[in-house]
C-alpha cells in the first residue's frame, strides 16, 4: 500500500485533524495558526491536483473505507466531475487562506482567530467529503459538517446582524439537510443500499414506486434550498453580506457549487436522465426556476447599493446558470454548467476578495465607496474590472465560455428561447457592474474625510495617495482574476475536462 492509494481519504483526514489541532496551536502561538492553515490547504490542493492527474490517466478511482467492499462499506469515488470540483474547492480554499491573514486580523477578535481557522478547515473537510463520497448517507453527514461550520463562520461577521443571518441560515439549512436525510431514508427503504453506484443499478426497476418519487422530491427541494435556487434563495443574501469578507469569498466561490455538484450527482448518478425527463419531468421545473433565477437575480442585484449584497444576488443568478445547464440534459449544456462551476468560483472569488480588500482598507462596503479607487488601488481595481468583465461574459473571459456552451446547448435542445434569458441577464449584469466600474475610474473620490483614520495608521498616507492592500491579500486576488482571463483564452483545458465529465454524467454514472 503506497501513499498514493490513500490520497482520497487523506484529502479528508488532513484538514479534519488540522481543524482539531488548530485551537491547541492557538494556545502555543496564535500567529502560527495562519501558517498552519496555509500549509494544510496547500497540501489539500496538491492532493486534489494529483487526484485529478490520476483520474485523467487511469479513470475512476474507488477507495474502500476500512477495506470494506461496497455496497456494504463506504466508498469514496473520484471521477472526472468530482476531481474537478475537488480541485476548484481546494484551490479557492488555498487562495483564500493566504488572503485571510490580514482580513481576519481586522474583522475577527484576536482570541477567536484560532477557532476561525479551525472552523475554516472543518468547512473544507466537509466540502471535500461531500464531493468525494460515493455513499449517500455519508454525503448527508458531510453536507451537515459543511453547513454547521458555515453557520459558525457567518456568525463571526463584524456586524451583529450576522448573527440573525446565521440563525436564519441555520433554520433553513437544517430543513434542507433533513429533507436530504428523508430522501436517503426512502431510497434505503426500497433498495436496502446506500451506495450511489449500487442505487443506480437497483433503482430503475422501482421507478414506479411512490417511495422513490417521494425520495426524489425531497432530494430536489432540499438541495435546491441548499444551493439557493430561486425562490429558495432567501437565506443567501444576508449570509453573504454579513459574513466576514473572507467567508463571503469562500462561500460564494465554493459552498453553493458543492451543493450544485450534489444535485448533479442525484440527478445523473443516482437517478438517470430518463427518470429526470420522462418519469418525473423535474427538468422542466428546474429549467423554469433557473430561468427565473437568472433574471430575478440580476434584476434584484441592480437595485442594491451594498456591494456584497449586489454580488450575492448576482450569485443567485449565476446559480441559475449552473442549474439551467444541468436541467437541459444535453452534453453541451451540461459542459457549460460544469465549466461554470469552475468559472464562477474564479470570478466570484476574485470579486469578493477585492471587496474584502476595499473593506479592509476603507471600511466601506457600499458601492459609493468605490469612487475614485482606480487611482488609489490600481491593482485591486484592475482585478475587480477583470472579474466584472468575466461576469458580464465579455469574450476572452471565462464567463463567455460558460455562456457559449449554455447557449449552444439550449439551442441544440430546441429551447432557443432560453438564449434571450441568458443574454438579457448578461446585459443586466453589465449594467450593475458597469455602475461600479464607472465609479472606480470616472468619479472623483468624495472629499469627505470618511476613512482617513483607518489607514493613516497603516502609514499609507492621505486619501489622495495610493494605498494598495498588503501583498498577502493582493496576490491571491490578482491570481484569481488573471485566471479568469487565462482560462477564458485557453478554455480548451477546462472545457475538455468538463466535456468528458458531462459525457460521463449523461452516459452512465461510472
Amino acid at each position, binding site marked *: 500500500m503506497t501513499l498514493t492509494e490513500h490520497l482520497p481519504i487523506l484529502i479528508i483526514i488532513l484538514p479534519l485533524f488540522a481543524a482539531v489541532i488548530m485551537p491547541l496551536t492557538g494556545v502555543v502561538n496564535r500567529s502560527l495558526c495562519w501558517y498552519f492553515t496555509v500549509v494544510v490547504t496547500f497540501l489539500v490542493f496538491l492532493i486534489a491536483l494529483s487526484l485529478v492527474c490520476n483520474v485523467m490517466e487511469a479513470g475512476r478511482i474507488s477507495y474502500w473505507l476500512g477495506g470494506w467492499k461496497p455496497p456494504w462499506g463506504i466508498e469514496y469515488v473520484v471521477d472526472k466531475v468530482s476531481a474537478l470540483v475537488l480541485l476548484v474547492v481546494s484551490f479557492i480554499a488555498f487562495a483564500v487562506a493566504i488572503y485571510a491573514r490580514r482580513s481576519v486580523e481586522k474583522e475577527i477578535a484576536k482570541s477567536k482567530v484560532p477557532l476561525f481557522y479551525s472552523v475554516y478547515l472543518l468547512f473544507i473537510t466537509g466540502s471535500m467529503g461531500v464531493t468525494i463520497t460515493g455513499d449517500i448517507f455519508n454525503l448527508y453527514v458531510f453536507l451537515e459538517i459543511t453547513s454547521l461550520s458555515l453557520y459558525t463562520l457567518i456568525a463571526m461577521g463584524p456586524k451583529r446582524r450576522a448573527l440573525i443571518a446565521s440563525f436564519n441560515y441555520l433554520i433553513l439549512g437544517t430543513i434542507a439537510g433533513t429533507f436530504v436525510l428523508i430522501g436517503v431514508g426512502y431510497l434505503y427503504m426500497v433498495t436496502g443500499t446506500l451506495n450511489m453506484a449500487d442505487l443506480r443499478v437497483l433503482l430503475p426497476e422501482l421507478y414506479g414506486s411512490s417511495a422513490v418519487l417521494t425520495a426524489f422530491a425531497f432530494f430536489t427541494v432540499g438541495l435546491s434550498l441548499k444551493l439557493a435556487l430561486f425562490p429558495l434563495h432567501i437565506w443567501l443574501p444576508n449570509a453573504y453580506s454579513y459574513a466576514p469578507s473572507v467567508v463571503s469569498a469562500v462561500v460564494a466561490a465554493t459552498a453553493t457549487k458543492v451543493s450544485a455538484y450534489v444535485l448533479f450527482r442525484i440527478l445523473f448518478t443516482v437517478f438517470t436522465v430518463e427518470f429526470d425527463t420522462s418519469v418525473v419531468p423535474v427538468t422542466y421545473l428546474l429549467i423554469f426556476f433557473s430561468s427565473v433565477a437568472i433574471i430575478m437575480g440580476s434584476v434584484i442585484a441592480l437595485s442594491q447599493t451594498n456591494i456584497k449584497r449586489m454580488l450575492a444576488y448576482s450569485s443567485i443568478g449565476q446559480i441559475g446558470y449552473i442549474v439551467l445547464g444541468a436541467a437541459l440534459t444535453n452534453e453541451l449544456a451540461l459542459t457549460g454548467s460544469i465549466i461554470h462551476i469552475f468559472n464562477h468560483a474564479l470570478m466570484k472569488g476574485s470579486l469578493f476578495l477585492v471587496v474584502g480588500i476595499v473593506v479592509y482598507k476603507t471600511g466601506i462596503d457600499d458601492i459609493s465607496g468605490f469612487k475614485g479607487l482606480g487611482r488609489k488601488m490600481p491593482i485591486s481595481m484592475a482585478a475587480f474590472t477583470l472579474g466584472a*468583465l468575466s461576469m*458580464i*461574459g*465579455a*469574450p*476572452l473571459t471565462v464567463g463567455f*465560455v460558460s455562456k*457559449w*456552451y449554455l*447557449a*449552444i446547448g439550449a*439551442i*441544440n435542445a430546441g429551447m*432557443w428561447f432560453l*438564449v*434571450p434569458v441568458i*443574454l*438579457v441577464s*448578461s*446585459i443586466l449584469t*453589465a*449594467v450593475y457592474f*458597469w455602475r461600479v466600474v*464607472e465609479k472606480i*475610474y*470616472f*468619479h*472623483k473620490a468624495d472629499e469627505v474625510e470618511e476613512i482617513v483614520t483607518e489607514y493613516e495608521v497603516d502609514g499609507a498616507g492621505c486619501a489622495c495617495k495610493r494605498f494598495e492592500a498588503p501583498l498577502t491579500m493582493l496576490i491571491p486576488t490578482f491570481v484569481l482574476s488573471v485566471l479568469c482571463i487565462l482560462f*477564458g*483564452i*485557453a*478554455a*480548451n483545458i477546462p*472545457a475538455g475536462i468538463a466535456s468528458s465529465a458531462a459525457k460521463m454524467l449523461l452516459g452512465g454514472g461510472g
Partner: protein
Amino acid sequence: MNIIYSPLPFMAILSSAVAVVLIALSYKRPNLREFWTIAAGVAKFCIVLSMLPEVLAGHVIEFSLLEVAPGLEIAFRADAMGMLFALTASFLWIVTSFYSIGYVRSTHEKKQTRYFMAFAGALSAAIGVAFAANMFTLFIFYEVITFCTFPLVAHKETKEAISGARRYIIYLLGTSLAFQLFAIFLTYSLAGTLDFVPGGILAGTGSKAMLTIIFILFMAGITKAAMMPFHSWLPAAMVAPTPASALLHAVAVVKAGVFTVVKVVLFIFGVDLLKELGLGTVLMYFASFTIITASIVAVKQDNLKRRLAYSTISQLSYIVFAVALLSPSGITGSALHIVIHAFGKITLFFAAGAIYVRHHKTKVSELDGIGYAMPFTMIAFTLGALSMIGVPPLGGFISKWYMFLGAIEAKHIPIIIMLAASTVLNAAYFLPIVYAAFFKKAKYGDASGGIVTGVQEAPGMMVVPLVLTSIGALALFFAPTIFLDLARIVVASVTGGG
C-alpha cells in the same frame, strides 16, 4: 487565390497593443509617450502596407492564433476587404496622432496618458476587426473597441460626459450582447462554423424564417453602424475630445460597425442567399430611411460636431445601402465609400477641432467669416464637405458614382431618386457653413473681445494633418486605383467570379 500563412496580420494588431503598455510605462515623460504613439502608428502602417502587394495579387494572408474552445478560434485573415479598412485606419491613425498631440497640448487635457492608451487600444481592435477571419474573432475586437473607446468618450469626466458615455456603452454593449451574440449563437448552431467564407456559410442550413431572424438580429446587434433606430449613441459620444471623435467616430468605431455589416452580408449570408430571402431590399430601404432622416436632422443642428455626427449616421448608411444592393457595382461603391468617407469626415472633424482650439467656437451660427481667420482650415473643410456631397473632382464622387451604377444594375430605379435627394440634403447642411465662413461678415470676437482681423490659425500640429487629409480626399478622385483594385477583388470573390 493562394493562401499565405504569416503572422503579419497579427503583428499589425499587436504593434499598437504593445504601444498601450509602453505609453502606460512612460506616463511621466510626455514626449517619450507621444513618440511611442507615433512609432506604433508608423510601424502598424508599414506592416499593413507590406501585406498590400500580396493582397493586390489576389492572395490571402492567414494566421491562426489559438483555439479558445472547440469551434471558437482566434484567427486572422488579411483579404482585400480587410485591407481596405486596415489601410485607411492605420494611415489615418498616424495623421490623427499628430493632430491629437497638438489638440491635447493646446487644450491642456487631463489624463493624457489614459487618452493615448485608449486610443492605441482602440486602433489595435479596429485592425483586429479588419483582419478577423471569423465572426468570433470579429466579435471580440468589436467589444474591445467599445471598452477602449469608453474612456475617450467619458474623458472630460463631467456629468454630461459620463451620461453620454453611459448611453454610449449601453447602446453598443447592450445591443451587441443581446442581438449580435444571439445571432452568433444561432449561426454557429446552424452552420457549425463561424468562418468568413466568400458566398456565406448559412445557405441551406435553416428555414427561411430562422435565417430571417438571424439576419435581423445581426443588423440590430451591429449598432456601431449607427442605423436608425439605434443611432443615438453617436451624437451622445460627441462629448469626446475632437480628435477622438474624428478618428473613432468617423473612422475606427463606426467603420468597424459598417465593416461588420458588410462582412455579415457578404461572408456570413452571401449575396445569393440574401437575394433568395429578399432581405437585401429590406435592408436597403432601412438604410435609405436612415440616410434621408439623418440628413434632415443634420440640417437642423447648430452644434457643429453634432451636425457632423448626424452626417456620419447618414453617410454610414450609404455604405450599408450600397452593399445591400447586392450588385457588383454596389459592393464596389460600398467598399470605396468606407475609405472615401473616412478621409472626408476626418477632415471635417479636424477642422471643427481646430476652430474650437483656436476660437472656442462650437456652433455653426458662430462661424461667420471665419474663413479669413483660418484659411487653411476652412479650405480643407470645404474640400471635405464637397467630397461628402459627392462633387467632382473629389473622392466622394467616385463612390457615389458606383452606387448609382449599382442601383441601376440591381434595377432599383426609385432608389436613385433617394440618392439624388440625399445629395441635395448633404449640400443643404454643409454649404451654408462654407458660405458663412467665406462670404459673411465676421461678427464674433476673439478671446480678448476684439474683432478678429488677421490670420489666426490653429497650431501647425493640427493644421498640417487636416490639410493632408483633405488632399487625400482630393487625391482619391484622381488615383483611386489601389482601393478600386481591392474593391474589385472583393467583388470577384463574393459574387463567385474569383
